[in-house]
């Protein structure tokens, strides 16, 4: 296992203040290693996007980060805690170290500026000494990188198709050669053919340039194929984290199992699709104990009362197997209590 680039430690994010606050992300810890693709999956409202925005302090009000650390390990020097970074430093940090490709391919580009202007302004903001000609040349190279003809440079966003716009966003995300790229459902707004094209391109670019990816999606089958490791979120918590192949072969948490059986597999033998009964939990009134127990087919006596801890399942060691799960079915202490 290579060195960590980004470590999220016990991050808590609320919407609103006081008693009315909704706990969207609770006590989430996650580590992204160098060159790795970490998948983050879960239903709508499970807190995956909130986690991504929260760790970059991009949450609009009323989103508040109430606790935790986000440690970034630079190439050299001491790790930085993004939560305590000054505004000016945070601004320099954003995009040059961690960039984001957002969910809405259609609305991520400013409609009144050309593609060139939007590619250049990020370069100008971080490397003010670059000349205009050099900026444009960089913008041209970036477009070439994602397979868009350089004569599109002076186009406005509305003149491009959805797939092209998302490619422009990916090009923009790579403009400053960041070490981490967060992809928040980058292909949800696109059709399936376009999805595959863009993902294939992404994999190729990652091999060429070498950045780490935090890939957020609800499409688990996509993750199984493209990511090294997968973390599953439910009700604002991580419920399982495992290497992609292990999770696919043998998911431990009943929720992961349900998610896997909600999508047709892209490869391999046919499986029956079952889906998950019920609907995602209301974050304002979370069930007691394990948040998943009202929908869980395997719920038993401790599930409704006590919340399971995210830990290595029995029979594995965290050092070698690198997987954790928060479920009473796989709790070590279950035997004793």
């Amino acid at each position, binding site marked *: 296992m290579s060195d960590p680039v980004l470590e999220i430690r016990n991050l808590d994010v609320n919407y609103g203040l006081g008693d009315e606050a909704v706990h969207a992300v609770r006590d989430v810890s996650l580590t992204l290693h160098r060159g790795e693709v970490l998948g983050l999956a879960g239903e709508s409202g499970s807190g995956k996007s909130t986690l991504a925005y929260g760790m970059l302090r991009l949450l609009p009000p009323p989103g508040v980060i109430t606790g935790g650390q986000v440690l970034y390990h630079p190439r050299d020097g001491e790790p930085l805690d993004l939560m305590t970074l000054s505004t000016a430093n945070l601004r320099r940090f*954003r995009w040059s170290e961690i960039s984001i490709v957002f969910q809405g391919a259609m*609305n991520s580009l400013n*409609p009144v500026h050309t593609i060139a202007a939007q590619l250049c302004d990020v370069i100008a903001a971080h490397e003010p000494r670059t000349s205009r000609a050099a900026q444009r040349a960089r913008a041209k190279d970036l477009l070439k990188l994602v397979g868009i003809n350089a004569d599109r440079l002076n186009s406005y966003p*509305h003149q491009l198709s959805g797939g092209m716009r998302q490619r422009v*966003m990916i090009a*923009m995300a790579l403009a400053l050669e960041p070490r981490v790229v967060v992809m928040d459902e980058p292909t949800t707004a696109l059709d399936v053919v376009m999805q595959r094209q863009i993902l294939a391109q992404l994999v190729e670019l990652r091999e060429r340039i070498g950045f780490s990816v935090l890939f957020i999606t609800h499409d688990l089958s996509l993750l199984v194929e493209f990511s090294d490791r997968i973390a599953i979120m439910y009700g604002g918590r991580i419920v399982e984290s495992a290497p992609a192949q292990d999770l696919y072969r043998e998911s431990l948490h009943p929720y992961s199992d349900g998610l896997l059986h909600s999508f047709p597999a892209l490869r391999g033998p046919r499986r029956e699709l079952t889906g998950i009964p019920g609907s995602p939990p209301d974050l304002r009134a979370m069930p007691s104990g394990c948040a998943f127990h009202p929908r869980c087919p395997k719920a038993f006596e401790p599930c409704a009362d006590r919340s399971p801890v995210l830990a290595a399942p029995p029979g594995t060691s965290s050092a070698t197997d690198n997987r954790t799960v928060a479920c009473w079915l796989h709790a070590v202490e279950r035997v004793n209590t």
Partner: protein
Amino acid sequence: MGYLLRRIGFYAFTAWAAITINFFLPRLIPGDPVQALIARSRGQLDANAIQSLYILFGLDTDTGIVEQYFDYIGQLFRGDLGLSFTFFPTPVSEVLSDSLPWTLGLVGITTVISFLLGTFMGVLAGWWRGSWADMLMPVTTFLSSIPYFWLGLIAITLLADAGGAFPSSGGYDPGVVPSWDMDFVWSAVYHSLLPAITILISSMSGWVLSMRNMMLTVSSEDYITVAHAKGLSERRVMIGYAARNALLPNVSGFALSLGLIVGGTLLVEIVFSYPGVGFQLFQAVGAKDYPLVQGIFLIITLSVLVANLFADLIYLLLDPRTRKEG
């Protein structure tokens, strides 16, 4: 380019329609200008005078309405709008050219200032919502709900009448001769201060409110979050991304309000007896001065059309989505 020509063609057609209506409307009113003059002079005109008036107005010849119509359009192109009754025998065009600069100067400048200032305040209020800037909102809402004539009268009562600091009426001091010297310019500026301030107070809040609303709408767009994530400076995001997009509806509102400069300020000029087009219109209506009313209406219509064309052009410039591919 083709789009532009189509717009210009459309406005030319509208202008023609307005001129035609302007021609026919007064002719639907019973009586004629000579009769109106006879009534005004209370029987002091004898038969000869009446006959010469008919000749003077060109009403002695028995021309058909179609011929009159083409004559009228021909006159318009020569800038001839007929003779005013109230200022008889001054031509309407002369009356208008005397009063237009006053209106354009006072209302034009205040409209531009009001738009710039109000929009800028709206940008700030929208960007820093939830802070002290929100205090601005109840104040502007209150100000925008005050009827203008009341505000003007109160301003005159408090600041102009009985030894107040400002003159209460007129466009310049009766003692100075209109010319481009310091005395006259200063006098004109001094006389316009009070009406200008009252216009600003009552019109600026509209710009603040609409700009703030648009800023709020735009602030939740994805590209604003992207701009933040790109690490652009706060000012760059506010101006280049949020305000730049929020400005679009306000700009078309502004262009339309430019069209209303000429005619929409009746109240200001009446309250302050300001020698502009609005005051002239008020007097002309009172005196049944049809040629003058007709001339003023024509100017108002044309300025609204020109402002609309201007709005189209600005929009074309500001919003690439409205440009058709050539």
